[in-house]
């Protein structure tokens, strides 16, 4: 068996057993649940950012679409969030396809700028359409007794497993995509779009497929988030800093384009943020964010390929030595 598979199996076993040792309504399990969610979100971003190498700064758009779609359907029509999740994912995917049209020819900075604008458009719309979204005041998921059908629980434990399942699923999608024909085509497009076209790769199509997958998954995770927090407003789900930049940062910290990257990144950043918030925030608004920004710049300057890269290099050296 390949060492990475062994590692994944061990990590998954630990992740599955760990909460049994924790207080099911405690603080620690909440942090872990959020960490798993952000790892999954970042993994979804990784499909566009890592495989297609398109630096999206607008993934909050999809996330918010998912959160609002399921919650609005739940509040207004009493529909199960599972249905809302499907509807949200469909809308998120459709919006991703729509965004792909004008951003198709854009690369690097231009793509980042355009996606940033799309994210902000959604934030502005959510803020200025109170009859649908509740506007800046936010929207609440109506309380219901514990039920898997309505995806609502008093304890954090079920959410933990929900997010863990989500992370496993998204990671599986990422790995299968990367290893499959689409993954090869995306890498080709990332390296040299002209050459890829000339040897038969429909660059527009593969980029759109990646965006649609990523957007749809991101929206589904938005629903999971809404059910987990019960309350959110446009700034929390459509926010540039809280979502768009954060999911990108997590992937970059861990290692962009690798399956382990977003997971490692999330397990570093989210607990760190929580620590910073609980230690520093008393009276010093901004300090934890300041630390966060400094961290981001340090990563870029010191280890731009992410935390996973040196480990991988070490593993590769070890393998070649053993092969000899």
């Amino acid at each position, binding site marked *: 068996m390949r060492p990475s598979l062994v590692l994944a199996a061990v990590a998954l076993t630990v992740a599955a057993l760990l909460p049994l040792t924790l207080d099911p309504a405690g603080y620690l399990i909440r942090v872990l649940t959020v960490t798993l969610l952000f790892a999954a979100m970042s993994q979804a971003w990784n499909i566009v950012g890592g495989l297609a190498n398109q630096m999206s700064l607008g993934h909050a758009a999809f996330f918010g679409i998912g959160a609002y779609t399921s919650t609005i359907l739940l509040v207004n029509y009493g529909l199960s969030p599972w249905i809302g999740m499907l509807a949200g994912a469909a809308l998120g995917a459709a919006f991703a396809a729509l965004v792909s049209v004008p951003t198709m020819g854009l690369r690097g900075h231009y793509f980042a700028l355009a996606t940033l604008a799309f994210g902000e458009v959604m934030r502005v719309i959510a803020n200025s359409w109170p009859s649908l979204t509740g506007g800046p005041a936010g929207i609440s998921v109506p309380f219901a007794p514990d039920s898997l059908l309505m995806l609502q629980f008093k304890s954090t434990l079920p959410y933990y497993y929900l997010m863990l399942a989500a992370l496993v699923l998204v990671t599986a999608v990422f790995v299968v995509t990367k290893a*499959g*024909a689409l993954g*090869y*085509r995306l*890498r*080709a497009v990332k*390296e*040299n779009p*002209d*050459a*890829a*076209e*000339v*040897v*038969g*790769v*429909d*660059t*527009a199509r593969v980029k759109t497929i990646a965006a649609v997958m990523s957007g749809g998954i991101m929206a589904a995770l938005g629903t999971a988030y809404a059910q987990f927090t019960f309350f959110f407003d446009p700034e929390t789900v459509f926010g540039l800093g809280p979502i768009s930049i954060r999911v990108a940062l997590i992937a970059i910290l861990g290692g962009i384009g690798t399956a382990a990257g977003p997971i490692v990144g999330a397990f570093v950043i989210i607990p760190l943020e929580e620590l910073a918030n609980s230690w520093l925030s008393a009276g010093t608004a901004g300090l934890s964010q300041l630390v966060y920004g400094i961290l981001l710049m340090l990563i870029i300057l010191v280890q731009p390929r992410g935390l996973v890269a040196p480990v991988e290099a070490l593993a590769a050296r070890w393998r070649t030595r053993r092969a000899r």
Partner: protein
Amino acid sequence: MTDAVLAVANLSKQFGGLQALRDVSFTVAAGEILGLIGPNGAGKTTLFNTLVGIHKVSAGSIRLEGREIAGRKPHRIAALGLTKTFQNVALFMDMSVLDNVLVGALLRQDLRSARVTAAACLDRVGLGAVLHKRAGDLSFPERARVELARALATGPRVILLDEVMAALNAVEMDAIMGLIRSLRADGLTIIVVEHHMRAIMTLCDRIVVLNFGQKIAEGSPAAIARDPQVVRAYLGREYQA
């Protein structure tokens, strides 16, 4: 000519105010090796890029096996059987040699069989031993061969080779020329842009000469070598020296 695999008629290409190609017409018969020559800046690479759809056609028609391909995207044209190699080598540098060629093979095959095809194409160009090297780590002549293998893997009818012999020594050049001939023997139609006159003259059945974006001559290698206009424009210095 009715058996033309590729028929180019009155092809023009403008970049802003610059007329890069003007009214270029020629045909290529099935199984032919056509040479395309001309001084630097004559429009050879522009012509290739226009044929495969990287540049949009300004005016004129390009027919591949009777089908109009002008205005189609490169991947559609590749699917119809026309592809090219890049003059300055445009490999996917961070991917392995095998994966580079694999991308081309994926055009008509699933992943599993594409892998087999890719390995076979690499064998054919003599790179069977470096499948798992990173493309960016290859020498320049090796890279040109990967280009060729990648183009072959798409299963083309017509293949445009843009200076695949640049930077090769005499032995390597003979090997590539042998390879090109064997491709023709397999039914491929080939257009070659090359600066080495010896290679062009011995390899090609026919030659088209471009200068300032226009076709100034067309004919057998022997006839081209004697054409006074061509000699003045281009051959004078290099071939007769």
